[in-house]
Structure formats: structure tokens, C-alpha cells
């Protein structure tokens, strides 16, 4: 069994705090707890990321769309929930993909599933 990825967590918490502020910190903390408790597979993280990103348009639509004559910065500034959802989704996507790729052996880099190493004629 692999050891706990303490350095990775620390980096993640620092990075999410840096780019997400307090909310980023909370997301990072929640992720660390989730990681500790459930040890999710990288693909699970990606699925959650897709779900979070998929929620963003729903949240925007739920708030209502402005008329063409009434567009303004409030469309964005008034919808911080979408902002945080998208940020969290991106974070999980990045972590999920990087974990998954790093778990793959570099030597098997581009080989198709269950295919032997390719041979080429030189």
C-alpha cells in the first residue's frame, strides 16, 4: 500500500489557497479529508469534476439571464457560486488527470491498452 501523499496534499492546499483564496482553501481541505477517508480513484475525481462543471450552466440559468439591454458585469460578479463551482471542477480535473497519468508507467506511455510495445523497423 502506498503511503499518504502528504507533499501532494500540501502542494494542493497551497495552490488552491493561492488561486482560490479562502474558498480554495476550504475546497482543498475538503478534498484532503475526502482523500483520507475514501481514497478515491483518479477517475472518480474526474467524474466529480465533470459533474461540478456541468452544474455551472444550471446555476447560471437558475439565476436568470439578462435581457440584451441589461447586460453588465453583474452577470458575472453576481454569480460567485458558478465561479467557485468552476474553480473546484477545474482543480479536481487537474488532480484527477495528473494522478491517473502519473500512476501509469512512463514506458507504457503511448501504448494502446493490452498491446505489446511497438516494434518499428529501422
Amino acid at each position, binding site marked *: 500500500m502506498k503511503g499518504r501523499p502528504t507533499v501532494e496534499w500540501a502542494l494542493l492546499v497551497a495552490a488552491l489557497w493561492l488561486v482560490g483564496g479562502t474558498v*480554495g482553501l476550504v475546497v482543498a481541505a475538503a478534498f484532503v479529508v475526502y482523500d483520507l477517508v475514501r481514497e478515491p480513484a483518479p477517475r472518480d475525481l474526474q467524474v466529480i469534476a465533470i459533474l461540478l462543471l456541468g452544474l455551472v450552466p444550471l446555476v447560471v440559468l437558475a439565476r436568470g439571464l439578462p435581457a440584451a439591454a441589461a447586460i453588465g458585469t453583474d*452577470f*458575472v460578479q453576481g454569480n460567485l457560486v458558478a465561479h467557485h463551482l468552476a474553480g473546484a471542477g*477545474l482543480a479536481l480535473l487537474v488532480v484527477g488527470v*495528473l494522478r491517473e*497519468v502519473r500512476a501509469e508507467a512512463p514506458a507504457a506511455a*503511448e501504448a494502446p491498452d493490452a498491446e505489446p510495445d511497438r516494434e518499428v523497423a*529501422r
Partner: protein
Amino acid sequence: MSRELVRVQPPEAAPAPRPLRAPTLSWEAVAYLALGLLAATAVVLTDQGWFTPDTKPEVYLAPLRTLARMLSTWDPDPHLGQPNFQTGLLPVSVVVSAIDALGLPAWLVLRVWRALLLLVAGWGAVRLFHLLAGERSTPAGRVAAAAVYVANPYVIVAGATTPVLVPYALLPWLLLAFARSVREPASWRWPAAFALAFFLMSGMNAGVVAVFMCLAIPCYLLYQRLTERTPWRRLARPTLRCLSLALLVSLYWLVPAAMAGETGEAVAAFTESPENVATTSSYSETLRMLGYWVMYFQQDGRSAIPGAVGYLTNALLLVASFLVPVLAAACALLARARARAFAVILLAVAVPVMVGLFPPTAPSPFGRLLRATFEDVPGAIAFRTTNKAGALVALAYALLFGFGAAELFRRASPQIPPAFAWRAVLAGAVAVVLAVAILPAWTGGLYPLRYLVPDYWQQLARDVNAGPADSRVLLAPGTSNVAYRWGMEGPDDLNLSLFSRPSVVRSTVPNGSIEQTNFLAAMDIPVSTGAADPEAVAAMARYLGVGEVVVRNDLRWETFGGSRPSLIAASLAGDQTLRLAGSYGRPGEHTVAAVSDFYPPEQATQDAALPPLQRYAVAGPRPVTRTEPVRGAMLVDGDSFAIPSLLRLGLAPGGPAFRLLGSVTPSELAASLAGGARVVVTDTNRRRAWGSFQTGQNYSPTLRADQPLPASTLTLFGNPDAQTLTRLEGARSVSATGSGSLLTNTPYGKPELAFDGDRRTAWITGDFGGAVGQSITLTLEEPVDVGEVVLRPLLSEPGVQIAAVRVRVDAGAVEVPVPAEPEVRVAVPHATTSTVSVEITQVRGAGLNPVGFWEIGVPGVQVRQVVRVPQTLKRLAGRLSPADRSRLDAAPIDVVLARAAAPGGDRFHDEERVLDRELWLPAERAFTVNGLAAAGPNLPDLVVDRLAGAPRGVRASSSSRFFDAIGARASRALDGDPASAWVPDGRGPGEWIELELPGDRLDHVDILQTLPKGPSGADVITGAEVSINGGKPFLVGLGQGSTRIDFAARKVERLRLTIAKVAGLGGQVRISELKAGDARIPSPPPSQRLRGCVQIATVDGEPLEVRLDGNLRQLTAGEALPLGDCGEPLRLSGGDHQIVSSTGWLVDLLAFSSPAPATRASQLPPPADLQVTGSSRSGMTIRTGAAGGPYYLVVGQGYDRRWRATMDGRWLGPPLLLDGYSVGWRITDQRPHRFEVAFGPQRAASLAQAVSGAGLVLVALLLVGARLPRRLRAWRAGAPRRRSPGRPPSADGEPDRRPRWLPRWRRP
């Protein structure tokens, strides 16, 4: 040839895809063709025939001239010259010039260029994808990557401009070359390819976007390190090679851009702030590749990017665009290619960068770090538009979509229908989502701007270009951003596209030095506001070397707060100094705005009578480069805003050279005085914050010395001592959260006006619905005892009014309602307090109008604001030698003071009602007085009657006049004419009229109240108190018509009638006649010349009496009348002086001159002959003839301390600031000379260009030459060509004959 089996060695080189036999015309090729056709159709056929510039229009309309401009570090047009930070446009200009050489019309040149860029982008995406996907590269993946990279919301919205699209198109190539470099660390070929890609990205807009693109480099390195475990050391070598070569070929724009850093920072200070940019860059918007702040703004009720509005208002479009990141994430889940890690690293880096400071009110630590960087690191502000990193996100999505599609179809085959079918349906659904997400491209959103330059502009250009090349053409009025009624908009004007002759136009954003921007503002603001004096315009134009002025009536003046064309035309008409030389276009063609409440039909009719362009010839123009005699030059303590006042008062006859004292050293002052210069003390160079949204009064009130001066300012010299400042008496400070307008800087409605005791001036704030939360705070020098605060709110009807406020003193706060009454008394916790603040907590009514307070009364407190003029002369005088000081004391001197008033007599928007000044004079002198003054609020009736020549025996005064109208003064009730009357302000009770009589014995008076003819709402006085000779008043009843008031007979010397009761519906009361014996004050005719002297101010407490040159009609109409001496000249000692204007007068201009201007030499010595014998954009050779005295060599280019000059080979030292804007030198040797003048940085820039050129040659050699020997060897040996590692031979051993532009792929 031997064959052997070897195992591919990852990770250094990802295995190349297995090449198969080439199909003749595969579906992939068909897909590319279809994609290219679709893109080209959208690009070329949308808005066919319209010119749709995506960057500076001159790039397409005058490509060769633009190309020539890019080679110079000094750009002489169109803002008087500036360091050129656009030299990076060179590659673009070269390509566009090449396309233009095909003979295509400008609109098609642009479209071909745009289509070419998209083609390059798509092709690059295919190549990059193919490299990164390696064995997993499939046609579906390549096509998907190309499609997503070419067609996405970023390309349509933020990426639609050439400065963004060029780096966007080349980003995949840059990464391709870099990835190859990493895989072949020993090679110089791929670093050379990297450098070429970076060179082609160009350095437009100081290379900001290209630098953003370089973020992909650390992303790729991180990817290599994290996923392939490549040692850093191994990554360092190719990285250094790439960067060093890229640096080498980019020096041609890096060096000039670095040298234009100051100009760039000044531009940045006046344009969008980092906070503005970040108002819309949330994670959600950024992830759907939007968030570009301009897209979310509206001006004049229309969106800045109309085609993109659907992304905010259309649910289908919104969902589709938000599905792009969702699908990209799904593709990441589906994909198996390891390079998906690179794509998400790109996202992880680029998206937070694009989000930047969002939300601007509470940015993340990274956002705060960015903000600090923008503020503190020189040049970093250029990177504030972080949305420009969007290409990285687009590329990441393109790769993820490609990886996903590749995986989706990797094992699917049309030969296995069920599996292929669902995959095809899925892919089709994704394609539909992507197609919807770029729907605006098909519905007119691809080109937010389209126009055709009208023929009349071409005609004007032909006439203008035929004029002398040594003088400029001035485009007036100035603009903030250009907005022509025929469609052209943006920061760049048309003159560079059409004029081959030097031209100048004012932009509110500084381009070049602050000094030249200051000069242009001083000249243009009166023109822009329709209050120009044509003589002043012509005189200032001469300083600029302007020979012709083109007045543009086809501007959308309403977008930048300009004045309508007919007002400008009227202000410039009728003076021979500006002669109308030509009109262009039909009357009414693009000169009329949409009729509205603010622009009624009659104004539209006036504007419709004007042609769109008018060309005026300036009488007696001067060349741009010239000489000006030192003798008679003006040394102005202030800035260029002094010049219009000097010209208006006739104090600058002949247009002498002038220098601003803030730029003068003591030795230069001494030399100038010895050369016959004169001194001008002014109240200009006011310490202000400036805005750039409007061309008129877009600046703050004059600041105190302790108030910080922002970067967005046109105030010169930085040092408060060299600036005009305000100082408060009666309080330490008065501040407010906002004043005037919340949208931009305005000088009117400043907070001090709420405490000045003048009920006709107000603090105003909270327009456009922003009133709640606005507050004003008074901070006192010493605590005072306060138990009550009296508020006099503005009561706009209809509109928004203040409904409740929170009043805070040191002892606590109370929140109280504010009824719609003129005066509201608010009881506050009784105690001593050192601060009083009033915060607006509620409003009532609807509208966009501002609210505010005429007065906020705090017992025992009255605030007075005094303006202190610049102290430069005082500072310099203290450093002069005794002999030089004596020259200064004897030098001609003018003191010119101008009230900060709104243009066009709009008194509600005046910054100042009074002309209270503090100034310093070098020595005791006798001064003649000159100026302009108008009747103002509270001008006493007695003063008007005296000026009108009323008999001395009877005097009539009153408490007030209706709207201060002179025609409603008290004496109109004694003129024997019932049609005229004394009409008090307000409804009546408390108002009084008083007569001073000769002392005749009277026993009654008659009061006549008659209603005026026509519709009226006049009220009637029904009761009044009468006091005789100051005695106890008695109440009398009055009625409409005549009322007799009896009293005990006595000698009456003074009679006062105070209104006690009024009946009616709320109109004005009026006393038509007040008959007291034979007392009469006949009404003089309007043409009556004003008589006698009048006190308009005090100087050091002594009355300043002047004579007004005008008649009663002019006085009554509020016209500013010339004023002059009244008897003895004004004698003032050396040292500090205080001027306080008297009640009732609006002193617009006040000048003290010593000696009198009439006694001064009227003719300036002739300037030395000058001939420019050779010139380039950044330098010139000048020959001068023999001179009659010392002179200034005025180059006519905007001031920059890096200009250099030699005279007959001798260095002339650092340049001087001459005529307010120009570089120049003082020449004392009167013999003929040869001058070489050049912009200093050009030498370094030329060197950089040469080095970059050599670097390009090196890059080309590395790219081509390095391979040549090997090929040559192979050719000589007759061997088959060796393939590059990325392009292995086909598996079946057959030669691969497919074109090189197509990547090698695996057949499904």
C-alpha cells in the same frame, strides 16, 4: 540494407505513429478541406465587402506606410510624436503588405490575412496533436483538435483581433518546436524553429500576448518532469537554446518596447485598470473561453461586442458554451494519451492567470500578488489584460477533444456498424454542441466592427496631402476613443490611414509625454465643448506647426461627451484667423444624432445643415520645425492651460515662445531673463486626477497638497510646489465617497461646496442609481460643540431625492428621514465633535439623476477653499544671484488668474464660483488690471443700479431676486412701469424690499401687485410687515391690485416691507410698483453703458475696483464683460498676496500686468531662417541662417528627454521643453549652423534590428542549412532520403508520397 528490430525508448521521444500507405483522398483530408472551407467562408463571406479591421486600420489601408513606421523608434504622428512601442508589428506589416501587393481591396486583404491565420492555427493544432498523441494519434483526433482550435468562443470574442490571433495561430507551432527540442536536446534545428515561431508571433502591443504564450513552456517542462520523469538538467539545455534564439530574433521589438515603457505606462494609467479587466474574468466565464470584460459592457445602450451578447442572453448558446469545458473534461476521462496531462497543466496555469484579480473586490492571494506586480514592477501593467492568455486554454481544449475523439474512434470501424454508430452519434452530438457554441460566427458576431470609409474622407485626404509637408493637419475635436457616425470606432483614428502629411489629433489617453498631452487638452477642451475662441485655436495651432484644421462633424460626439457639430461650427465661425477653406460631403451626411429628450429636433435640424467635414486654413501658420526668438519669450509658472487665457487677454501678441517654469533651472531662468524674457504667474497646472472617457471636463476638482495624485493625471512636474493647489480654511478636510459623477472624474459638485455657505452650490453624487451609501465627511481643525446639523437637500423633480440619511458625529450617529423640504434640521447627540459625516441611506423616486446637498450646516463652521498658485517662481527666485534677481524684479510680469468654470456658461457645473487666490510676486510693482467678469449670484441691487446710472437720491435693495435675475431687482418696483417688478426668490415669506429715501414727509405708500401677461402661476402677497426708519414693524394686509398702506406722517428715510403671508398655488410673488411719494428709479434702456467703478475683489484686504466695459443688457444676460483699471494702477509689494473675490461677481479672468501691455514692444524679433535638409521619422538635419539674437530651435516633436542634437558637430546638451510640448534647444551663437537632431534610442533600436536580422539569418541557416549537407551527401551518394524521426517510413516499406503538410497517421 539491413533491418533490425529495436524497442522504442520512451520517454525522451514519444513514439511516432505507425505510418501506413497513403490514401488517395482520405476522409481526413476531406474533413480538413471542409473545415477550411467553412472557416474561409465564415471569414470571407460574412459582411462581404465591408472593411472589418481587427487592429489598427492603417495596417490594411496604408500597409506600406505602416511598414515604414514600424522601423522607427519614434512615431511622429498623430499625437505630436511618441516612442514607438509597436515596432513588433513589423512581421504583420510585411505579410499584409505582401497580400496587399496582390491588388486586393483592403477589406479582402484583411479577410485573406485572417483566413491565413486560422489555417495556420488549425494546421499547427494538427501537427502538435499528432506529436503529443504519438501512437494514439488518429484522424478523428487530429480533425477534432483542428476544429476545436479554429472554431471556439475565444476565437470569436477575445481572439478576434490580430494582436491576439497571430500568437494564437502560432502557439501550436511554438510548442511543436519546443517539444521537438526537448526530444532532440542536441539539435539546434528545433530551437531555431521555436525562435522563428516566436518571431512570427510578433511584438504587437509590446509583445504581451506572445509573452503570455510562453507560459506554455513551463507547462510543457512540468509535464515532462511529472509524467516522463525527465531530469531538469536534461530539460534545461533545449529550453535555454530555444529562449536564447527567440530573444535574439525578438530584440527588434523588445528594445524599442522597453524604451517606450514610460509611454506605455501612461497609456495604461488612463485606460482599463486591472480591476476593470477582472470584473468579468470568473472561473466559470474563463473556462468557457469568455470573460473578456469588454463583452459585458454597454455604451449608449448597445453592447461593445454586439455579436457576443447571445453568450449572456441566449440559453442555448450559454449552455453550449458551458458544455465546452464539460466535454473537454469528459474527453480527458475518455482519453488514454499521456499528453492529456499536458493539457490539464495548461489549464491549471492559464485559467488562474486569466481569472487574475477576480473578484476585484476580494481577489485571491494570487490576484493580490498580480495586483502588486502591476503596481510595483515597471512595465508589468502591460500584462493587466490577462484574458490574452486564452490561447493556452483553447489549445488545451483542442488537445483534450482530440485525445477524446482519438480514443472514441480508435477501435471503431465502419465495418463494425453498431460500435461505430453510437460513437458516430456521440461525436455528432459533440460537434453540434461545438457548432452551437460558435453560432455568433454565423450570425454576424465575427466582426464587431464594420464600415466603409466615406468618399468625402478620401476627397479631404487628397486636398490635405497636397498641402505643405512641413506643417501639420489638426483633426478637431479630439476624442477619447474614435467613434464616427458611419461606423468606425476604436482607439486609432483615420489620419494615419489616409494622410501622408504630418497630422495631429488629441486623444484623452496620453500618447507621448504628459506635457504634450497637456497642451493638446488645453487646446482641444474648448473646441470639444463648443466654447472655443477661434483666435486662441489658431494661435495654439501655430505653436503645433498646424497649417490646416479639419473639423469633424461626423463624429458620434455623444459617446465621449463632446459637443454637437453646430455648436462647434458656431464657435469657430467668423474669424479670419481660421478661414473656412473647404467642405466635404453633403450637408447632414453623418452629422445628425438620434433625436431624444437630450437632442431635440431643432438641434438635429441645425446639425443637418452642416457637411461632415470642414477644412479651415490657419492664418500665418508656422512650420513644425522652426526657430523662435528668445527675446519676448514667456516664462509661465503653470502649464499650457495658461495659453488660452493669455491669448484671450491679448497678453501673447505674435505668439512668443514660451517655457514652463516647472521645467526650468535657476541658471536657465537667469539666462532667459537676460535674453529679454518675461514672467507669467498663473493658476494653471492644477493638481487633478484626469479621466479619459470624455473630452470635456473629465478631471477631478483641484486637489490639496496632501491628497495623492494618481497616475492618471495631466498635472505636470510632480512636485506640489509647481502645481496649483487648494487649501481649506475652517476645516482640516472635506471628503466624500464620490462627487460630481460616479462614472468618471468631474470637477463640479465637489464636497467642499456643501459647507461653503453658498446656497447655490452643492455637493452632488450618486448618479445612475448609486446614491445609497455615498457619504460626505467634514473633519475640523478643532472640535466644536454640535447638537444639530441643518441639511438643505437637492430636490430634483422628477427624479431621485434623498429620503434618509445617517448623520454621524463623534458622540454617535442618528438615522433620520429627509422629507422633501428645502431645509431639514437633524438633532444629533449633543457633544463636541471633530468630525461630521452624512451618509445617504435611502432615496425616493426614480431616475438617473444625482442627489446631494446644497448646504450642510454645522453651527459655527464655514469652510472656505483657497487656491494657491504654483510657487516655482518663488523657488527659483531664491536661487538667483543678486544681479539675476534684480533682472527678475525688473522683468515684465503678468499675473493671469482664471476661474475654474464650466464651458459655455453652464454654471451648475462650475468648479469654482469665486476667484480666491494666494500668489507670490518678486518685487513691488504697479500693475494695470485686465480681465473678464460677469454678474453672479447675490449681486446687490444697489450695485446694479449704480452701474446703470441710477440717481443717487433713492436706493432700492432686496433680500433676493428670482433666479438672481437682474431684471427682477428692487428698483424695478420704483420705475413707474407696472409690467416690471421686484420678484423675490422663493415663495415670499421672509423676503423683503427696502427703500432708502431722501427724507420727504410721507403718510402712506401704495403697493401694486399685478399679474404678468400670459400664462402665469403668480401668487399674491396677502400680508406684510412694514418698518419705517428702522422702527418696530407693523402688519398690513395686501391684495391683488393696488393697496394703500397708511401710517402716521413723518419724514421717511428708510422703509422696509417684509412679506409675511402669501396666497396662491405656489408661484412667485411680485411687487410691480411701490409708490413712496415722488421716489422713482427710472429704468434705464438695455443699451445703457455701465458707469463708474465697481469692487470685484479685495487684494490683501484692500478693495480692487474696476471699470466694466459693457451695457446693461450684457450685464443682465450674464455676459462676461471686459474689465479694466479704475483710476490709479494697482500697486503691490513683493511677497505673498491674497485675492478674495467680492460677492455678486463671477470673475472669469483677472490679470495684473506690469508694465502695461500697451507699453511693451509689440513686435518680436524675426526668427532665424531654418531649412530641414534631411529627415527621417526619428531625426533630421537642419540648417539655420544668421540670427539677429539668441533663439530657440523648436523641433516640433513631443518632449522626450532622450532627444539629442549637435550643432556643427558639438553636442547641445539635454533638450528643453519649449512651447509647452516640444523638444528644442536654446541657441546663443547667432552664426549659421548645421544641426543634427535625433531621437537617442533609435541607435540602440537600429542595433537591435540589425542583431535580430542577423539572428533571423542564423535561424534560417539552422533550419535549412544545417540539413543541407546531409541531404547533399545523400543526393550525391544516390541514397534514398532519410526521414526525420517523426516521419518514419511506412510499415510496408513503401515510400510515403503524401504531401509534407499532412501528418502521418495510422489507417483505422
